[in-house]
C-alpha cells in the first residue's frame, strides 16, 4: 500500500514543480568585453560594454531593419535599434551589478551607445556612468541575467580592461563556468566583499570583474 502512495506523491511533486520556477533558459548568448572607466582623480566613473550577440539572435534583431546594401548595416541604419536596446535594458538594470567595498553602486542611463554589425553578429556598445563617482578599495562588477534568458560570457581574449585606473590597482576576472583551482584560491583571497545572501541563482553564472586598490 505504501508503494503506490509514494509513486503518487512523487508524481504530484514532479508535476507541481515544472511550472513553479522561472521558466527561462538562454535564447540569447552574449560575449562581452568590458572596460572599467576611472576619472582623473582615481575614482571609478563607470563601465563601458561591448556585447556581441550570437548569430541567431542577431538575425532576429535585424529582422525588418531597412538597409541599403544586402548583408550590410551602417551605424545610422541601426541607430533606432540601438535606442530600443538600451531602453529595454533599463528594466533589467543593464544586467550590470556593481559593488564598491560591499555597497551597491547605482548607474545612470547609458551614454555613447551604438550598434555595429560585424557579420554575422551584432555588437552593442554602451557606457554606463555611475550615479556618483566611487572610490572603492574593492570594486566588483558582475554581469549576469538572473532569469538566465541571456547567457553572458566573457570574451576569450582581453575580456576586461581598466581605463585610467591608478597604477597600483589590480584586476581579476572570474570566469563563471569553470574556474580553475588556482583562480578559485585567488578568488577566496581577494574576496573582501561579503557574499550577498539575497542574490539570485543566475549569479552563479555571473561574470565577475574585481579591482583591488591599496
Amino acid at each position, binding site marked *: *500500500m505504501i508503494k*503506490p*502512495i509514494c*509513486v*503518487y*506523491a512523487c*508524481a*504530484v*511533486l*514532479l*508535476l*507541481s*514543480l*515544472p*511550472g*513553479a*520556477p*522561472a*521558466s*527561462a*533558459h*538562454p*535564447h*540569447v*548568448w552574449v560575449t562581452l568585453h568590458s572596460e572599467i572607466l576611472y576619472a582623473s582623480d582615481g575614482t571609478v566613473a563607470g563601465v563601458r560594454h561591448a556585447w556581441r*550577440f*550570437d*548569430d*541567431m*539572435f542577431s*538575425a*532576429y*534583431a*535585424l*529582422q*525588418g*531593419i531597412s538597409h541599403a546594401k544586402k548583408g550590410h548595416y551602417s551605424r545610422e541604419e541601426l541607430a533606432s*535599434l540601438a535606442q*530600443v*536596446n538600451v*531602453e*529595454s*535594458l533599463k*528594466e*533589467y538594470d543593464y544586467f550590470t551589478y556593481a559593488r564598491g567595498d560591499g555597497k551597491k553602486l547605482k548607474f545612470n542611463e547609458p551614454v555613447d551607445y551604438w550598434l555595429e554589425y560585424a557579420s554575422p553578429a551584432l555588437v*552593442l556598445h554602451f557606457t554606463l556612468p555611475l550615479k556618483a563617482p566611487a572610490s572603492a578599495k574593492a570594486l566588483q562588477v558582475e554581469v549576469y541575467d*538572473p*532569469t*538566465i*534568458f*541571456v*547567457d553572458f560570457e566573457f570574451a576569450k581574449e582581453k575580456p576586461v580592461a581598466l581605463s585610467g585606473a591608478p597604477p597600483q590597482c589590480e584586476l581579476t576576472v572570474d570566469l563563471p563556468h569553470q574556474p580553475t583551482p588556482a583562480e578559485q584560491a585567488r578568488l577566496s583571497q581577494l574576496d573582501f566583499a561579503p557574499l550577498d545572501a539575497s542574490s*539570485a*541563482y*543566475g549569479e552563479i553564472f555571473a561574470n565577475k570583474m574585481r579591482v583591488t586598490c591599496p
Partner: protein
Amino acid sequence: MRTVIDHKRVVAGTLLAFSLALAISSAHAAPFGPPHPTGGAWPQSGIAAWIFAQQAAFYRSLSGFIRASKDDGSAMWSLFGISFLYGIFHAAGPGHGKAMISSYLVANEETWRRGVTLSFVSAAMQSIVAVVIVAIAAVLLGATAKSIGWTVHLVEIASYGLIILIGLRLLFVKGRSLLFALRAFRWREPQFEALFATSSGLVKLSVDRNGSMSHCALCESDHAHAFHCHGDDGQEHHESAWGHAHGPKPAELAGAGGWRRGLSAVVAVGLRPCSGAIIVLIFALAQDLFWTGIGATLLMGLGTAITVAAIATLAVVARQTASRIASTGSGAGMLFMRVIEVGASALITAFGGLLLAGYMASEQLWMFTG
C-alpha cells in the same frame, strides 16, 4: 473492518502529500517577489543542470547546421535530428505547457490515450503558430523584431487568459462536485460499518444514523468500484459520493463532450509559440532557408510532444493510482478525489494568473528588441 481503517489512513496520507506538494509549489511561485523572476527557485540538482546544458548545446548548434544546409543537402537531415533532440530536452525543462496539461489530466478523469493525443496536438499547434506568425509578420509584412515580439506577447496574453478561464471553469465544476461529495459523505456517514468476505466477494454492512440497515456488495464492473447496495426498502442504490448528490460523475465529464473541453486546453497551451522556434525561423529566413526552418520547427514540436506525452502519461497514471486507492476507501476516498481535482484546478488557475501577471515570466523576446 481493519481494511476500511487502513484505507482511510492511506487516503489521509496521500492527501497530506498532495497538500504538501501544493504548498511547496506555491512557495516556489513566490507571487509577491519582484516583478521579474529572480530564478532563485531553479532546481540545482544534477539532472536539471544536465538537461539545461544539453538543450543549450543543441540550440546553439542549430545555427551552424542551418548555415551548413545551405550548401550541403545532407546537413539538413542532421539539422532535423538536432531539432528533434532539442525539442525533447527543451520540453523536459521547466515550462507551463506540460504543467498545465498534466494538471488538466489530474483534474479530469481522462484516458491515457487522450492525454497523449492532447500533448501531441498542443505541441503541433505551438510549432504551427510559430510558423504562421513568422510567415505573416516577417515574410509577408517585413515586420521588425519589435513588432514580432509584440505579436507574440499579445498571443501569450490571450493564451494565459484562456488558461485562467479554463482553470476557473474547472474550479467551478470540481468545486461543486466537492461540495456535493462533502454533503453526501456527511449524510451517509454510517454509524456502524463492517466488511465481510463472503464467497460472492466483499460485502459491506452498514447502519446509518436513522438506523436503517443496508448491505452492499463491491461491484467490480462499476467504473468507480462502488458498493452496490440494497436498502431496507429493497430498492437498489449505488453507494458513491454522487449517488444522492445529482452531480455529474467524472465518467460523464470525460465523455463525448470531453474532447471539446480537451481542445480548449490544447488551444490555451498551444497558442503560445516557443521563442526559440521564432528565432530559429527568422534566422533560417535570413539565410534564405525558410522551408528548412519550418522543417526544423516541426521536428522540434515532435520532440516536445514526446516529452509532454510522457509527462501526461505520468499524470494519468498518478490519477488512476490515487483513484484506485481512494475507491477502496468508500465515501472518504471519493471526497479525496474531489479534493485532488479542486487542487489541480486551482493550480491551473494559479499558473494562468502568475503567467499573466508576469511573475512567472517565460521567455521574453522583447528583452533587447523593445
